[in-house]
């Protein structure tokens, strides 16, 4: 079985400040980890993923995520938040042996960036 936890329903940050959106996971074998963003009334947009290699993954719009195997975490980060980053963020995981490529999603974290 695979699962994802996003412990914060909402994260508030001031524009220009660094942001972190937390994600922890549970999966059999090595994890494939993903972050998606959803703007109002839109589908999910792919931000970045971790498969293997460097623990720091860089993605779209200046976002990055840090994979920590010992803590089973994959936190999303950005050095300087923009008001336009305000959206709903989803972390997702699948195990390396998941032949159906089935993702399990966290409940989502709403990011609010205040001017």
């Amino acid at each position, binding site marked *: 079985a695979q699962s994802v936890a*996003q412990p914060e329903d909402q994260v508030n940050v001031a524009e220009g400040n660094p942001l972190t959106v937390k994600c922890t996971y549970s999966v059999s074998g090595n994890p494939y980890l993903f972050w998606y963003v959803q703007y109002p009334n839109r*589908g*999910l947009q*792919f931000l970045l993923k971790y498969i293997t290699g460097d623990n720091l993954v860089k993605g779209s719009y200046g976002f990055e995520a840090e994979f920590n195997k010992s803590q089973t975490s994959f936190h999303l980060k950005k050095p300087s938040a923009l008001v336009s980053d305000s959206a709903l963020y989803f972390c997702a995981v699948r195990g390396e042996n998941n*032949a159906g*490529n089935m993702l399990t999603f966290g409940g989502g974290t709403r990011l609010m960036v205040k001017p």
Partner: protein
Amino acid sequence: DAGITQSPRHKVTETGTPVTLRCHQTENHRYMYWYRQDPGHGLRLIHYSYGVKDTDKGEVSDGYSVSRSKTEDFLLTLESATSSQTSVYFCAISEPPGGGTSVFASTDTQYFGPGTRLTVL
């Protein structure tokens, strides 16, 4: 959302009526998925397809059926809609894990359509 369309985008129906949602892709991806999105639950997988006529159940498949008669179309049917099926439904596509060719930057990443908002009264 490029290359993936969903129809209808909005639908209101009554309890007990059948409903079919359509997902259409122009990317020739082999895998297709149906999810539902509900507050606090993130996205939950309903059914997926790993090829034409090849489908399997996901986490929340009760009350739903699917069909895939050609690569580009994946249909989700609610045989007799209930109020608990009021939700936003998303389709996604991907290549098989570890293989395939793709015009997108990453194979096996799932890419999502714009969604269908379904209300069952």
